[in-house]
């Protein structure tokens, strides 16, 4: 589905990604874990084209996308839920969701997907006329994910969906991520600091440190890897 080959990204002189290689197969949940400032968000931003890729190739179903503008990449079926949610605070929940479907023209499909996200998160249906900024943190995360789903992506990029949420809400969110993957066969690339939860729902995982991928393995093996346990699982 998605392949990164020797991807390098920099902000001015700061090189944030150095030769990142990773592969995501269709239908998988793949997680990228790493500490603060390791380059997780940068990886996602580079994939969606919001931050330009300095060197290397990004292939989506065999097609090079590293030089495309963000809107073209979304049109190809890649949608990102940015870190910190970035919902439209002054727009209503419903308007936020409509903007998720911005590039789509199939009215019936949009309506169907609207019903679908309302069924995933009934609270959003209840609050659909409330402005996004007045939702709680967990509800905002749900809104951000739903908005991305409204684009009906084939590949969903999630940037730290558990950030700043209560454990119970995190559990709910992760269950829904799993459900989205199962029910819609949506491929999911999940960036997390919450390594424990992420590895539990993921098929495979990558570990990033200072802009380099230092480990790649199946999620089970990473969970049992002593280095990972010490550095990211706090065991």
């Amino acid at each position, binding site marked *: 589905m998605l392949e990164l080959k020797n991807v390098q990204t920099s902000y001015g002189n700061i090189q944030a990604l150095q030769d990142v290689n990773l592969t995501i197969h269709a239908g998988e949940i793949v997680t990228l874990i790493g500490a603060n400032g390791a380059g997780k968000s940068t990886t996602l931003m580079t994939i969606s084209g919001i931050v330009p890729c300095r060197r290397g190739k990004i292939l989506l179903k065999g097609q090079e996308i590293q030089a495309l503008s963000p809107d073209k*990449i*979304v049109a190809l079926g890649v949608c990102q839920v940015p870190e910190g949610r*970035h919902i*439209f605070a002054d727009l209503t929940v419903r308007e936020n969701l409509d903007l998720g479907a911005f590039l789509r023209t199939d009215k019936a499909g949009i309506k169907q997907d609207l019903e679908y996200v309302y069924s995933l998160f009934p609270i959003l249906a209840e609050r659909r*006329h409330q402005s996004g900024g007045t939702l709680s943190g967990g509800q905002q995360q749900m809104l951000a994910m739903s908005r991305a789903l409204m684009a009906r992506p084939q590949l969903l990029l999630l940037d730290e969906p558990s950030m700043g949420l209560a454990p119970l809400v995190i559990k709910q969110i992760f269950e829904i991520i799993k459900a989205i993957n199962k029910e819609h066969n949506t491929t999911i690339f999940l960036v997390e600091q919450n390594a424990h939860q992420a590895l539990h729902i993921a098929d495979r995982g990558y570990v990033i440190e200072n802009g380099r991928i230092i480990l790649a393995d199946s999620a089970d093996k990473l969970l049992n890897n002593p280095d990972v346990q010490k550095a990211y699982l706090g065991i």
Partner: protein
Amino acid sequence: MITVKEVKRSLLVSLWFVFLTFPLMVIKVNPYERTVSWRWSNMVYVAIGTFVISLLAKAWFVRKERRMARQQDSCHARIPIIQRILQRPGYRYPLAAFLLGAVLAFPHLFSTYQANIMTTALMYIVLGLGLNIVVGVAGLLDLGYVAFYAVGAYSYALLNLHFGLGFWTVLPVGGLLAALFGVLLGFPVLRLRGDYLAIVTLGFGEIIRLILENWNAFSKGPSGISNIPRPGFFGLEMSLDQAMIYMYYLMIGLLLVTIFVVNRLQDSRLGRAWLALREDEIACQAMGIDKTRTKLIAFSLGAFWAGLIGVIFAAKTTFVNPASFTFMESAIILSIVVLGGMGSIVGVILGALILVLLPEYLRALSEYRMLAFGAILVAMMIFKPEGLIANVRRIYCYQGRKSNTALKNDE
């Protein structure tokens, strides 16, 4: 309702004003006779006047706060009354018909002079609506809007001077040229936001004005271009009065078209994209909104209307020179948008009417005219900081499951 503390505060305010205005209001020096007269009575007026006004303002705020507190749970009441009237079809159509009738009859009820002032006000309404797309809806602070207005005016003046083109031919050309300039300005400032964008657009406006002022061979410099023909009406000869009235109806027509288009735009996909862009650029990109295109369209559409009005301005005054396109114009148009309430069409219309008509009708106050005008503006911004008509789309709120559908029936 009014406590001792508030009275004390008002006393302080009035003392402070007495102190501030003392040299101006009390001391009167006559340099010829070398005498100083002390007008103590003025001091008493200032003291009493400010004391009363300050108390009234305080009382108003207290009432407003109480009202806000009462309305915490019912958000319907927070929608401005005008908007509520407009939302009811039963009121909407009779009101619209009445307004249209009044507007159409206006030049016949009042003098041509009044119609002329009203034409100017209409021009500012359209300018305000154009800038509203850029500032109010898309959230791009543009301080050089007058540049596009100048482009329109000079395209008519110059195309007429050199090629003899008529008003109706140049009207779309002027608009399109201005739109082109909008794109030209848009490209370099795409990456800028807020203060930086404001500074660059401000510079752009000044550059256009300075070019017009100094490039004598092109624009005839500060002396400007005169004898620009008024718009024709199928080759009919018109007296000055008739031409004025014709101009008035022309502006009414253009205004109606503008309102229609702007209204449609705000509800369109593009309008949504502008709103989204104003709120969060990263989220926009993540949703697949083409940031570059959306911003450029906002700039060029805004500029297009300024260009149209520029052409009309040149035709109305039959004379253009760079002095008509100073930063002050941009500031006035921006004030119209802010004063009226960002993003609201009715607000912009009211804002323009107040900002253009008030100085005219305040002429009765002769030398205190601008003072009164300034005071009214300051008062409006204190009492209604969100503009005359706050944009209602922000005030939907959670009302529980049952009453949800009553708010907005979009499902």
